[in-house]
């Protein structure tokens, strides 16, 4: 028997050193892999910084009061964003009004009312599939259904000469509503799921009906989560360009829409129009428009975070 104090035999020393070098190598590989992961995750953030910096450099030459009050023009120094801002406000207002009740209603149905059957799981699967449909396909849907009032077969829905809603604010808004509905529904479902069952049980226990339970206990508790999801969905809709190009938002609008049936342009469409011109001055205008667009998005996201923090404290979570 060898005791621990005995010097290692030459054979075991060899094994030991092999083990040691092996270990050093393993350690080194581990550090390298860690660095690789760190670098990989920094690439995206680095590109984000470059992008924002690029826009910051170009985006403030034309930033002035005129930019917000003027309509687009062939002369870059007097061209403005007014029509696009008003168009986006109109469209987003209608999107908010339509998508909130439908989205929350659908989420309430799926979480509180629906029996777990084939139809329910079909609706649920369909919602997640719909979220993956390219936005331009929604544009094609909107072009037929809302702009022209037809599904391509049989008669169109017409009032007098006017078939469908035409290339108008309401067509754009309804198209975007269908586009963001899956997002609103899923976010609302998550918020409703997070309301603890004990609250429902207490309400049923004192004899409340299902609707009383839902409307005065579940919904108020879920509201911060729903509002956060709603704002995030709206900020997705603001940046959407493809579907409203499809439904025919104009790219050169020297007026602001006065009603839901008026033609319109929107911020990303105006930006696209400026990008697609060859002159550098228009690219700077596009960058200025992008700055306005990004600041709007940033504000909306900040509001969403604030709502989550402020109302979340008293809420269920």
């Amino acid at each position, binding site marked *: 028997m060898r005791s621990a104090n005995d010097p290692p035999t030459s054979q075991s020393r060899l094994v030991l050193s092999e083990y040691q070098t092996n270990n050093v190598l393993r350690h080194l590989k*581990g550090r390298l*892999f860690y660095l690789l992961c760190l670098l990989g995750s920094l690439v*995206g953030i680095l590109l984000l910084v470059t992008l924002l910096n690029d826009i910051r450099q170009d985006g403030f030459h034309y930033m002035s009061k005129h930019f917000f009050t003027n309509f687009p023009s062939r002369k870059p120094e007097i061209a403005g964003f007014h029509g696009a801002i008003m168009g986006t406000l109109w469209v987003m207002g209608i999107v908010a009004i339509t998508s909130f009740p439908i989205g929350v209603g659908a989420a309430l*149905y799926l979480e509180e009312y629906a029996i777990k059957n084939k139809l329910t799981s079909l609706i649920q699967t369909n919602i997640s599939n719909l979220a993956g449909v390219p936005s*331009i396909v929604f544009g*094609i849907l909107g072009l037929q259904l809302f702009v022209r009032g037809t599904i391509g077969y049989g008669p169109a829905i017409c009032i007098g000469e006017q078939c469908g809603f035409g290339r108008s604010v309401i067509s754009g808004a309804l198209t975007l509503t269908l586009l963001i509905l*899956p997002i609103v529904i899923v976010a609302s479902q998550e918020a409703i799921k997070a309301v603890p069952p004990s609250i429902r049980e207490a309400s049923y226990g004192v004899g409340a009906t299902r609707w009383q339970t839902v409307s005065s206990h579940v919904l108020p508790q879920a509201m911060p989560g729903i509002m956060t999801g709603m704002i995030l969905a709206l900020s997705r809709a603001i*940046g959407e360009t493809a579907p409203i190009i499809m439904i025919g938002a104009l790219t050169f609008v020297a007026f602001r829409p006065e009603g839901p049936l008026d033609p319109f342009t929107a911020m990303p469409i105006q930006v696209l129009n400026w990008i697609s011109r060859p002159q550098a001055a228009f690219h700077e205008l596009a960058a200025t428009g992008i700055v306005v667009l990004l600041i709007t998005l940033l504000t909306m996201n900040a509001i969403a975070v604030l709502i989550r923090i402020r109302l979340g404290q008293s809420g269920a979570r």
Partner: protein
Amino acid sequence: MSFETTRVTARYRQNLRSNLGGRLIGAVLFLCAFVTVVTTVGIVVILFIEGLSFFAEVSPIEFFTGTKWTPLFTSKGFGVLPLISGTVLIGLGAACVALPLGTLTAIYLSEYATPRIRSVMKPLVEVLSGIPTVVYGYFALTFISPFIKEYLYPEAGPYMAISAIVVVGIMIVPIVASISDDALRAVPRELREAAYGVGASKLEVNTRVVFPAALSGVIASYILAISRAIGETMAVTVAAGARPNLTANPFEAVQTMTAYIVSVSLGDTPHGTIEFKTIFAVGLTLFFMTLVMNIISSRITKRFREVYD
């Protein structure tokens, strides 16, 4: 006795009434949910009706095998392959950018980052998917394309597939990172501890235990991300150009299916003509490509999800 009966009946009636109200509310809520089903049916019906009337005039064989896409010219060619090749080039290129970056990000976030770093880094990465795609288009056209022309490939024109590939790749990184991160974090602690217990290093635990255990979720995220890249519209419209081009060279201008649809709707092609109907045929093709990928992705997630309890 009769007094009791009337009281019961009155309450019964009242309950019935409120139950009726409840049912009405239930029906209205059901209709809200049903809007989504109607949307899907609407998309499918519209694409099929207009698509079929297109295929009545152009044979599907010509459409899917032709290599000349010039529906708006006098000598019309209705071969969609150049558009599909442009779409696949950008989709696969973006995958080459996003899959490694997204996977590394997910591993970093779930296995290495401290909770503090994670709480800063995850939202930052997700900002990438919140930026409007037209902004990416601007960045590609005014920053990446000139950069590539200056340093890498001076012969390139102002439009090139590669700069669209870069921005589309970056914008789908959060999809890969976020879903893979969830999958990695769902791997139970015991698996890691068992591996450490038999002497594995962190690298070995991550690459040979955690990552394989989360593989189905990771692959689902890959497919979903590629599907998103294929449906991406504005960045490729702005940066990749508007020339249907059957090429695998990323430094040339290409046109994707989505960019073609946009170019038709920006033009003044009259409705009802065969030229206009092309957008439905192309839209139908695009819809099915993305649908199949999304279904495969969700099947993988469902079927191969390891249930750890």
